[in-house]
């Protein structure tokens, strides 16, 4: 019951901050100019706030208990992606003046068809990413209040969709930044307490997994005893690291930074914030293996641990805090994802207007909820891993080649996106549906990034015929790397100032 109260409080506070943010924005004519002056620290916190999802708060600890310490590679990959964001996309993307990946594709390749293609890929990635968020909301609500899973999922869908409609969730950078601080406080704070309260014996057992199988303590990710843990680990790392730089809702965030230099620096700050946060899910996972090893739903282990270590009122309070942190993760990520999904549906696929955007949110929520209902038994991190694998096989090559190679053509990009998206979603779906014998094949279907990413790069490059590169391609690429007043960065800044 206490858990439900704390979750409602988080919800109320975010809506209040959001509404206040909207009012502040409306009363300031130069909101957009002001937004470019937001201190990079706030921007980084907003990115981290949106990025730290249920996969990080719940999924990591759950997978750690279930499969072993190899699950920590997910956190490493999620963070390592920002090294690539800083090195490959942040600066040039900001200079392009493009707001989303489809915008960038249209700017760079000059084809409305590629915009629609990208819009479709955005929808696929965002849906794959949303399903586990709703699953997380469902299992947490079930645990803290006993309401059935499906009621929790549908209810969360209603809450998120209506809170976006009110305009409260995404309206300002500080709502997202607030969510980062909230998650850090509600996950890290109780974790420190629990380390202290667990006592020397349980601490010793947690850091020194005696009695566990050798497989569990081995720092590699194995898939159902496939016998190829190194292969599986590398494929997960490829998916998470390369996928992070192709996530549409993250790329979008760099638009509110002052310029290319600041965009790169923000990416560096995000690494600090993520590195700090990712220490704590591991604490819950290691403690959870000791105090709650046999729970049938490992994805809720983070919320279970406090009650197992400290019985009574203190444990209940700690549990309520952790549940609220998990729900904050669900809220911030899913509203960001839903807006990107609705944008893809309404703006890029069907040529948008504001009513269409609202319709897109309703449709997107409906789809995600409907798909989350039968996914109750799939691990959160497995689903999120697929979203990253699709992003790594589609937008990662599109952005990398588009930014650094002028030979990329609209035809090459279209074919590459089709092949990358088809191969990665096809592999993930077939591993979810079919019953494949554990082995190399099952690893490469369940974690397809290792082969789908090179495949997508090769098709994009191979189908870009040198003869069909338009004469302005040279300039459109060089502009992305030019500091100074002829860059589109300066140009779009002027456009914005005159709005």
């Amino acid at each position: 019951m206490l858990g439900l109260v704390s979750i409602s409080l988080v919800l109320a506070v975010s809506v209040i901050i959001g509404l206040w943010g909207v009012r502040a924005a409306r009363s300031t004519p130069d909101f957009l100019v002001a937004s470019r002056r937001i201190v990079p620290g706030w921007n980084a916190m907003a990115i981290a706030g949106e990025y730290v999802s249920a996969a990080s708060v719940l999924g990591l600890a759950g997978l750690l208990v279930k499969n072993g310490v190899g699950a920590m590679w997910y956190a490493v990959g999620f963070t390592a992606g920002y090294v690539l964001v800083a090195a490959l996309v942040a600066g040039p993307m900001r200079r392009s003046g493009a707001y989303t990946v489809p915008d960038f594709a249209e700017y760079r390749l000059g084809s409305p068809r590629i915009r629609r293609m990208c819009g479709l890929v955005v929808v696929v990635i965002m849906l794959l990413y949303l399903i586990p968020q709703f699953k997380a909301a469902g299992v947490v609500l079930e645990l803290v209040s006993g309401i059935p899973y499906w009621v929790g999922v549908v209810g969360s869908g209603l809450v998120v969709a209506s809170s976006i409609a009110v305009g409260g969730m995404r309206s300002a950078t500080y709502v997202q930044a607030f969510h980062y601080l909230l998650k850090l406080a509600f996950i890290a704070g109780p974790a420190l307490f629990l380390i202290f309260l667990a006592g020397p014996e349980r601490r010793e057992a947690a850091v020194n997994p005696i009695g566990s199988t050798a497989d569990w303590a081995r720092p590699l990710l194995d898939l159902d005893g496939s016998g190829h843990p190194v292969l599986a680990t590398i494929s997960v790392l490829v998916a998470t690291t390369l996928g992070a730089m192709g996530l549409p809702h993250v790329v979008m965030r760099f638009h509110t930074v002052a310029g290319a230099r600041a965009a790169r620096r923000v990416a560096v700050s995000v690494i600090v914030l993520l590195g700090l946060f990712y220490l704590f899910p591991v604490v819950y996972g290691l403690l959870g293996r000791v105090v709650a090893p046999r729970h049938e739903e490992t994805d809720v282990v983070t919320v279970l641990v406090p009650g197992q270590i400290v019985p009574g009122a203190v444990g209940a309070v700690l549990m309520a805090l952790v549940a609220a942190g998990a729900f904050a993760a669900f809220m911030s990520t899913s509203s960001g994802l839903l807006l990107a999904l609705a944008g893809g549906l309404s703006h890029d696929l069907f040529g948008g207007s504001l009513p269409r955007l609202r319709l897109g949110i309703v449709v997107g929520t409906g789809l995600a909820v409907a798909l989350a209902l039968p996914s109750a038994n799939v691990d959160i991190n497995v689903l999120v891993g697929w979203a990253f694998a699709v992003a790594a096989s589609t937008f990662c090559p599109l952005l990398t080649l588009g930014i650094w190679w002028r030979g990329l053509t609209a035809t090459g990009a279209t074919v590459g996106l089709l092949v990358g998206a088809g191969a990665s979603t096809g592999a993930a779906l077939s591993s979810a549906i079919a019953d494949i014998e554990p082995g190399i094949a099952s690893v490469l279907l369940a974690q397809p990034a290792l082969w789908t990413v090179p495949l997508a790069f090769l098709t994009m490059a191979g189908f870009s015929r040198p003869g069909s590169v338009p004469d302005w391609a040279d300039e459109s690429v060089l502009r992305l790397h030019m500091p100074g007043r002829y860059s589109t960065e300066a140009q779009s800044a002027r456009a914005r100032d005159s709005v």
Partner: protein
Amino acid sequence: MPQRIRVTSPQTRLALLRRTDARRSLGRLSGRGTVPSTAIDLAAAERAMRRQRRQAVRTVVALGITLTVLMIGANLAPGRWGWAVLFFAPYPFLLALAFVHVRRAERIEADS
């Protein structure tokens, strides 16, 4: 009479802006723009981009090596301490990689 101002939400304004931004850049690039394309020094831009690209490749390779070494290190760690390597080691290295890259990229920009 004071000028009338259309009040829209920031999201709407961004959405409207997106279209003009994209059109503007595209119009410019296909030669219908306001600034002639000779306005940028193509040779200098070319040199700057090549240097940035070399730096980006170096960072990507360094990241690959870092992750490989981490994987080997975690698996060579004695007994049950593999998790400690993954807990403490990765983030400082990742931060250092990104930090060095950004410094070098900014230096290249200052030169060009």
